[in-house]
């Protein structure tokens, strides 16, 4: 089953809130993980690992550095679903 962009965004927001306490309302496509959401590398990796499990995708370590914004992550996940 494929997740829509909106579903991935909502799911990511849930993971980010759970990890960092940032309100889900603040998680928007244009937000940068580091500059806007102040997410450190350890939290980022935790979110990535949890997102892999939640959405059934693989996010290679080399790819993580390319995921600058929430939108980048949503696009990667939706276009790499099994």
């Amino acid at each position: 089953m494929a997740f829509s962009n909106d579903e991935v965004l909502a799911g990511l927001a849930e993971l980010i809130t759970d990890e960092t306490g940032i309100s889900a309302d603040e998680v928007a496509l244009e937000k940068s993980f580091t500059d806007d959401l102040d997410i450190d590398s350890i939290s980022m990796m935790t979110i990535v690992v949890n997102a892999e499990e939640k959405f059934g995708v693989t996010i290679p370590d080399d790819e993580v550095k390319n995921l600058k914004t929430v939108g980048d992550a949503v696009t990667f996940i939706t276009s790499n679903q099994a």
Partner: protein
Amino acid sequence: MSTPRIAITGIGASSPIGGTASESWSALLAGESGARSLEYDWVEQYQLPVTFAAEAKVRPDTVLERPVAKRLDPASQFALVAAMEAWADAGSPDVEPERLGVDFATGIGGVWTLLDAWDTLREKGPRRVMPMTVPMLMPNAAAGNLSLHFGARAYARTVASACASSTESIVNALEHIRAGYADVVIAGGTESAIHPITLAAFSSMQALSRRNDSPETASRPGSIDRDGFVMAEGAAALILETEDHARARGAKIYGYVVGGGVTADSHHITANDPEGRGAARAVQQALEMADASPEDVTHINAHATSTPVGDPNEYQALLSVFGPRVDDIPLSATKASTGHLLGGTGALEGIFTVLALRDRVAPPTINLTERDPEVPFAFSGTPVDLGAGDQLAISNSFGFGGHNAVVAFASA
């Protein structure tokens, strides 16, 4: 340079008998026990020979915000809860970060995090092992996180000397402040190791009480039918501060840390020296640093874990220091109520000792049945009045590895 006097200006605890220091103290005076049957599937699943323990009264993850709690092993969660209480109790001292230290102990460290990660590795593979695993399981996690939380930059240290750990932390903090490296130190210890592995392991070495049908009366130091200690968990923290610093900001003072002694037995990895020589030297060192003699001691908080061999060894150690008068000094074995918090136990008992001096009352030792003639300490099942005069007390902690740590406190 004169040696600064070190005051205790704040206390905090999360223990099996209370979610705060004052709740724990009230419950102790009321003779309560924190031991209960464990209601977890794993007790039956693994057919554990011991089915009870003294769990903390309040889960720390119900006190801390979730994003904070989920980055901390339960041991560090307890530490943060206790330290936050102590810090607030001290009036949140205004102190330069470079003059604020942390000395926070643990016996075991993040055993839950380590073993949960092992389960994850086996069930889901390495990718699912969380990146926070190492910073959560490391034994210095509590000290590091407290340093971060309170902005402490003088130093952040973790003593690991098993059940002597957090008494040793208080001694370390005292020495560090006296040496001039800090004005204020958050000292204490924590443990959260009520886990099937530790219950199985301590059971295998015959260290735990097996009174599964009566958890509340299982910890009975000094009684002839004692059969082992009761596993407990939680943390306790004390704010240590130079008297000048405390006075300058008008802080309340509970009492003073006046001496400490740390020695090693080099006798056996788990058994105490039967003559208690290392323990006796630690008591003597603490009294020497306090510039006091054995005659000055008005109260003792004993290590007294309720094991068959440990209690008489401690008696021998104290007998050699105090002589026959040891049978008359009001002595409390508070593990009868709290169980044994391992790395957190010395700090919790330190708080109980300071409060005993403040309130001029030795807390009761519950669960006394028939007294063991080899342990003729002056235990009492009810609180004992210490009298109105100046008070000096020692609190003892001994740990696997042959560690002996003793701290001396004086009334304000």
